[in-house]
């Protein structure tokens, strides 16, 4: 939105062009303004007295609306490469390594608890410049992010999924997805909401409905919705995942979804199925990167066996839960 548009277009047309306007006006209780006038003039005409007490004038509000619309400008930055330039481990031994990641790459991070998986994710989140305990440097499109831009950087380019996350809103699954899509100022939210909802159901194995409240979702359904939503609606080009394996979701489907996208995905995990599914895996030890392994033939064979075991596990779980034995319903008492 430009200032010219703000002063030229009638408010009604402005809202049509920038749907988030309506939400902005709603937040300030200004939906009843005269839509046939440009926003600044409509404000001059009908600005409620209460705004004076908030020290908000008509021109302040006009400036705010423009600033609000330009405040997510760097949310859609394209990241064509992310490079992890090695620092040192907990004993100060240099890592002597550099890992280059491109959109579409899915990399797993493995290593025992305390080996430094979370620190590596944290380094990426804050665009480290040799100023975190690992002394690593993270380069985006080949360069470091200057400090002034790092401040709000992490919240824009990096999305996260961890085991600790919960839904704290009490809304339906559909309202939740709509609210998220709207917050990225998408004008037509219905198609993405539908696709995201379908994907979540595919991942969860157990169907839920669009009007199911978030608070009523099972652990697996909630996790499935979070994954689908983060991959499909969040525009962040980098996705950091910390241990989602115990979530009761279809992990193979989840990996498929992750690899289909154009995001750079880093996945810290103890689950061999997830670890081996990734194209590369970073082995961590004592806070440092010990090695980076490409998925090879042996990995793929192991992966096949694990997948079969996983399928057996899934189908037996389903059967047991449905009261079946040897594929037959045990019948009623």
């Amino acid at each position, binding site marked *: 939105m430009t200032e010219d548009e703000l002063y030229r277009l009638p408010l009604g047309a402005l809202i049509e062009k920038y749907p988030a306007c309506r939400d902005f006006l709603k937040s300030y209780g200004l939906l009843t303004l005269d839509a046939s006038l440009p926003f600044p003039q409509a404000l001059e005409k009908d600005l409620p007295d209460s705004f004076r007490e908030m020290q908000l004038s008509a021109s302040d509000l006009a400036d705010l609306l423009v600033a609000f619309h330009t405040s997510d400008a760097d949310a859609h930055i394209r990241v064509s490469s992310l490079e992890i330039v090695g620092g040192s481990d907990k004993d100060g031994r240099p890592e002597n390594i550099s890992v280059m990641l491109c959109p579409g790459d899915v990399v797993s991070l493995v290593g025992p608890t305390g080996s430094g998986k979370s620190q590596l994710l944290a380094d990426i989140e804050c665009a480290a410049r040799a100023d975190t305990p690992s002394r690593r440097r993270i380069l985006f499109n080949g360069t470091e992010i200057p400090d002034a831009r790092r*401040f709000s950087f*992490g*919240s824009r380019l990096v999305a996260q999924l961890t085991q600790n996350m919960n839904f704290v809103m009490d809304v339906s699954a559909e309202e939740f997805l709509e609210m998220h899509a709207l917050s990225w100022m998408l004008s037509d939210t219905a198609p993405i909401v539908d696709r995201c909802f379908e994907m979540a159901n595919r991942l969860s194995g157990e169907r839920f409905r669009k009007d199911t409240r978030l608070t009523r979702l099972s652990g697996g359904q909630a996790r499935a919705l979070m994954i689908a939503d*983060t991959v499909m609606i969040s525009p962040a080009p980098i996705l950091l995942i910390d241990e989602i394996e115990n979530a009761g979701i279809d992990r193979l489907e989840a990996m498929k979804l992750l690899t289909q996208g154009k995001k750079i995905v880093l996945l810290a995990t103890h689950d061999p199925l997830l670890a081996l599914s990734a194209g590369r895996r970073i082995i961590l030890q004592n806070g440092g990167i010990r090695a980076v392994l490409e998925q090879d033939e042996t990995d793929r064979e192991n992966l096949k066996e694990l997948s079969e075991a996983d399928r057996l596990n899934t189908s037996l779980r389903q059967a047991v839960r449905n009261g079946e034995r040897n594929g037959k319903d045990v019948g009623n008492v």
Partner: protein
Amino acid sequence: MKMITVAGPPSSGKTSVILHALASISGQKAAVVKFDCLTAVDKEQYEAVGITVRVGYAGKLCPDHYFVTNVPDAFDWAVRSGFDLLITESAGLCNRCSPYIHGIPAVCVIDNLSGIHTPRKLGPLLRMADVIVVTKADLVSQAEREVFAYNIRKMNPRATLLRVNGMTGQGAFLLAKSFALAPEKETLSGLSLRFTTPSSVCAYCTGEKRIGLEYPLGMTRPMEFDL
């Protein structure tokens, strides 16, 4: 000396955020002055890590009047004591005001668990801050983080948004880096508040407890009700 004002609702994590930020600053002598209403429990937390702290209780006074009438002395005390950095910490009080001063960096700490509409409810505390620190973001879904950030942007699109984990301190060193950008000041005298404090001083401000039209004895503003 540099000064930073930090404010936010109760239990949003102000003290934890300040402690983590100060822990990542080296070679700077920092002091904290905590402004509170009736009680404050954070003094020990600061002292445990060797940070000099002074606590002021507004008690019967309007907390914001109390803040603005005492903060110049707090500043002078910190200068005379040889500190390089003074951080004032104020509890959220009634959300009517904000303890922010023109020319002094203002940090608002708000937590992601407090509900997605909280940014709208906070008023000048959020609207007039330069840096908004979001805590407890690790506990909610990515979507709720993003919607929360969006709701903050609606109210204050110009502020820098920073996520700090109050438990692990992750992100706090970036906040500390922003402290370093604060301008050097010699005195607060002559500066002005970003937002007015309440102008209506009535008998309730000075201890009146009885209810009834004859008691307020000062500026009042009656609500209008139908019928």
